[in-house]
């Protein structure tokens, strides 16, 4: 199994951080522009002029670059759970920075997502079908752990 380098873990972290930050900035910017309707699409063009929206779009571009980079060396089913960590990050930022109350159901949701990401991250990052390797088999066999 190809071991992920530190640099590649940084790219995976970039997916989570940039998408979270980008979405938050976009949401913040759209609040300034409340009332854009689908009937006046020109409003969407003007939205780009809002500094929050501009910053959000730049960060989402950074997210996309990280995402594409990750997909060039890891499976889609490996990278996608990493993107879901963004939901967890948003909730934790809300809780610790903005002192939002997180309900027990949401904590359970956070735990499930984190567990899912852990499950995938502990396995191989890429399972190429074209050049099968013996070591890839450990995705299928039940783990002999602890």
């Amino acid at each position, binding site marked *: 199994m190809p071991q992920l380098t530190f640099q590649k873990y940084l790219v995976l972290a970039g997916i989570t951080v940039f998408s979270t930050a980008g979405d938050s900035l976009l949401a913040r910017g759209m609040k300034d522009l409340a009332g854009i309707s689908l009937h006046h699409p020109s409003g969407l063009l003007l939205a780009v002029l809002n500094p929050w929206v501009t910053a959000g779009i730049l960060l989402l571009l950074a997210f996309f670059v990280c995402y594409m980079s990750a997909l*060039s*060396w890891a499976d889609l089913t490996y990278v996608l759970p990493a993107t879901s960590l963004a939901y967890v990050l948003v*909730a934790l930022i809300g809780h610790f920075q903005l002192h939002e109350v997180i309900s027990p159901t949401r904590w359970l949701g956070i735990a499930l997502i984190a*567990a899912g*990401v852990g*499950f995938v991250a502990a396995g191989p990052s890429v*399972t190429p079908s074209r050049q099968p390797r013996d070591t890839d088999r450990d995705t299928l066999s039940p783990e002999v752990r602890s």
Partner: protein
Amino acid sequence: MNEVHAWAAIGLIILASTTGDVLLSYSMKRVGDVTDLWRQRGLLAVAARVLATPTFALGLMAMAVAFYSLLFGLSWGNLSLVVPASASLTFVANAVAARIFLHERVGRRRWIAALLVAGGVVLMAL
């Protein structure tokens, strides 16, 4: 009636974003490891190679369709229905599609992960 529209939009979002993810993943696998390519040929070579891959443009178009379906879905249905339903089902649909079209080995580990994440997304949106 709005309910039907909302679910139609959710179905379209799932279909389009799964198609997009599979096409983008397929394109990037054809481009190859970009970190190696970057080191050897430079950033411009990476960009040129990605943009020259026809499936990449198709993938982007599918993502755009998914994005606009989400906008329309939000105008018909509740935020609390459309977002979690489409996000969580997309995780499961992607696992199925990656196995069929990308021949990824979606082992027990990844099935469990897809289901856990999908369930977690629903709970977080409640």
